């Protein structure tokens, strides 16, 4: 496996637990709106994967708890309908920062401009910059730093501004 480089822990505002039914409801509504069939999200040390099946309601599957809280969905960036997913255009490894010691390109709550670099996907030892396709606020970062991603996998949820 690729070695995992985790972003340094940052002070974050208290977040509502992902497994809170209200939070789950918001996430499922967001999936419906955006047409996502699968969403994996990490917050407050919890990781939740939601998979939308043929039934109207998405199935919820908890895929475990991470050791330490690394990032959180900010209160002010509470997920609203209308957020759109930025998906991976290629297969590779997800990097939130240009290098392990440099800050992440974006954090949840940041406003990003069209064309702004959101992350790097490493494929065949090449770093490929993934840019925001529109101006908006980062609502969620769907993938853990250093994790392999597949084609079409949602990386960020961004609310257009």
């Amino acid at each position: 496996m690729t070695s995992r480089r985790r972003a340094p822990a940052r002070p974050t505002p208290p977040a509502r637990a992902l497994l809170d039914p209200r939070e789950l409801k918001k996430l499922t509504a967001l999936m419906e709106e955006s047409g996502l069939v699968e969403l994996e999200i990490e917050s407050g040390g919890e990781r939740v994967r939601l998979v939308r099946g043929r039934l109207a309601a998405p199935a919820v599957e908890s895929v475990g708890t991470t050791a330490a809280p690394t990032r959180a969905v900010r209160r002010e960036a509470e997920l609203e309908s209308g957020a759109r997913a930025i998906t991976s255009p290629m297969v590779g490894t997800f990097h939130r920062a240009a290098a392990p010691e440099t800050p992440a390109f974006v954090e949840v709550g940041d406003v990003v401009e069209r064309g702004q670099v959101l992350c790097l996907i490493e494929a065949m030892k090449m770093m490929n910059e993934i840019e925001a396709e529109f101006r908006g606020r980062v609502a969620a970062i769907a993938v853990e730093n250093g994790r392999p991603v597949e084609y079409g996998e949602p990386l960020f949820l961004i609310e257009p501004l």
Partner: protein
Amino acid sequence: MFTKILIANRGEIALRVIRACRELGVASIAVCSTADRDALHARLADERVCVGPEAPEDSYLNVPAILSAALSRGADAIHPGYGLLAENGDFAEACERSGLAFIGPRVRHLRLMGDKPRARRIVEKAGVRVLPGSPEPLADLADARTVADAIGYPILVKAAAGGGGRGLGVARDADALAAAFAVARTEGERAFGNNLVYVERYLERARHVEVQIVADRDRRLVHLGERDCSVQWRRQKLVSEAPAVGIDRRLRAQLVEASALAAEAVGYTNVGSVEFLVDPDGGFYFIEMNTRVQVEHAVPEALTGIDLVQLGIRVAAGEALALEQKQVTARGHAIECRVHAVSDAGPGARATVAAFHAPGGLGIRVESALQAGETVALAGEPLLAKVLAHGATREEALARLRAALAELVIDGVPTNLALLGRVLADPELARGPVHTNWLEDHAELARAAG
């Protein structure tokens, strides 16, 4: 041994490799297109990576995406299955450059045997007979005419990068040569991206017999006997069986020896099959070598009990063949048929599998990745299932296969099951052997194929 293998394929062969990996204690990664996320191979592998959109060139033939999937997930080898990238020398080379083992022969074997006129020259030089033909690809139609006049009609025009029954045109006389030449050229360009063609004398009443071999890196070579694949429809094998009916010990020994000569001529390693045409007098001619696990690999597996897919993985991992020729014993008779979709509809035609039931019972083996509810693209008449029957005798194997096909349910997709049923019930086939044009010539049987 490898720790994690990425399988660059889909369908039943991907499942077959996943199974072998599991038995060997090796992790597996399936790749899929956006249309195949719920396909059985994507569900049953230890990991799944979507590598691109539905079009094969964007997903299953997307070399950078496949290599990136293997590298980002920590795979150490790639199994190409058959078809797709299996005989692509450039892909095998790209795997090796990325530090990934290609589970198959060496790059040079793919290149030498993939260039069909060159393979003919190499094998002929090694002392194996080939049909009279053009030693080099032909420049143009005039060149083809000159060679055809010299060797005599009928003539088969073949794509130089072809194989598997594609890129072929038959000319029974000089007038038909232009059309056959054009067919081979166009199909070669379309299917293999190469419009070079060559010609060979065409045998009308020959049988297709091939020999399964496996060789390790130290060139220890073992064969797993011959099989007959003469029941063909539009030059695609429909029924394969072993042992081949009416091939006596002397001829079998000659075929096996010729196969070893062909493989050794290029220093071949891993699993492969050497294909021959056998004429009614017992004369035989090398046609090509398949440098990969074959669709029909379950036939020698049934007879010998040897797992060819596992063996191929072991050889690619550098293990020596822990198998000697005298340990390979064939038991009984095996017959396998290919159940595929049939369609006259356009390239975008699809059908949904309403119901699927695989037969079972003593001596029956079904290899299929079909699932009820799944949508099948009909273009190219894809393989839906392989059904194999093994019995103590040919009669027993045939009876078991007929019974199994009667049990097989594939609702919602047009298939060749009716044709297979008639073929397997045909008295001429029961008497055996038949030649490669038998089914096409057989009016009543052919009608069943629509």
